[in-house]
């Protein structure tokens, strides 16, 4: 039975070693990201082209990688909205895009056109509200967005004109490049002052944001 003890001990050692390696690696990534955040105007977490909200009195920057066609983004939207509404004086929310789906780019162009009218959040809200209809799997109908968006109180004629004129390719490609620098492949992904949100839950997001505000 001595063998079994050795085996169990080895097993434990492997598990502990693995967890230790994960912790060490994640801490090193976090500290590297915080250094990045401190230099060059917050790039690659913040870019001038990105939509951003909040007063940022406490210098806490929340970066969200988002895709309007992504279901998880839609599901998590009420949570980020709630946390951000509580702390919009203290923080700044920066939206970055990761257009991973078939019609993501189309939707992002619409969002950017709505941003011109200062109706960004309203438009995003509508996109998520009707996401099941326009982004149904294997049967997407992005053109339906034109029918839903008036509900956001947009000037549709202006939206159409802005949609046709805006060029978001450069923005999307820089956002994608920054995402890959940061190891982000999926949406939604959050960073708060460069610290990655590792669990998509209300509590985890709130804890991370508050830990940066009351630091």
């Amino acid at each position, binding site marked *: 039975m001595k063998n*079994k003890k050795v085996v169990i001990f*080895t097993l434990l050692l492997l598990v502990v070693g693995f967890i230790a390696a994960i912790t060490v690696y994640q801490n090193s990534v976090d500290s590297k990201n915080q250094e990045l955040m401190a230099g060059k105007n917050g790039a690659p977490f913040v870019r001038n082209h990105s939509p951003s909200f909040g007063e940022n009195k406490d210098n806490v920057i929340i970066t969200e990688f988002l895709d309007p066609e992504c279901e998880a983004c839609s599901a998590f939207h009420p949570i980020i909205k709630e946390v951000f509404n509580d702390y919009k004086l203290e923080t700044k929310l920066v939206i970055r895009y990761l257009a991973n789906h078939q019609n993501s780019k189309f939707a992002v162009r619409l969002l950017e056109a709505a941003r011109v009218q200062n109706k960004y959040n309203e438009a995003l809200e509508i996109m998520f509200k009707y996401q099941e209809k326009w982004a149904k799997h294997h049967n997407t109908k992005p053109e339906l967005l034109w029918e839903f968006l008036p509900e956001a109180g947009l000037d549709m004629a202006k939206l159409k004109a802005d949609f046709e004129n805006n060029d978001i390719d450069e923005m999307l490609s820089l956002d994608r490049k920054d995402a890959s620098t940061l190891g982000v492949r999926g949406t939604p992904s959050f960073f708060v002052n460069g610290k990655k949100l590792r669990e998509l839950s209300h509590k985890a997001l709130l804890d991370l944001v508050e830990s940066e505000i009351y630091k």
Partner: protein
Amino acid sequence: MNSSRVISTTVILLCFLVASVATLGSLFFSEIMNFVPCSMCWYQRIFMYPLVLIFLINLLYPDDKLFKYSMPLVTTGLFFSIYHNLLMFDIIPESVVPCVSGVPCSTEYINWFGFVTIPLLSFIAYFMLFIFLVLGRRRY
């Protein structure tokens, strides 16, 4: 020690360690460091992961058949890892790589000391298992 045993317990423990480190290491690369595994990597994973449990069970409940059921997995995995390394070293051209989605199999995620790549680590693991099983059997 069980007298009917063909491979010594120490060697099996070593094999278990190698397979475990290879398994946890590959999971670390994909889940923690977010490297996307290419299809060759998946084939090598398929033959490595079960070895952890096969060695573990043999350590806990020894029998003399270990060589028989671990060797086919090791040689198959070894074959895939040799093929993959030939791709990395450009000995087999990229165009014949059976990769359809996502990442090309010649993507180099890590390069330690100028020559250590993930496929090389995989090859080392399979090669060690192969040697341990072959030599461990004779020595007894």
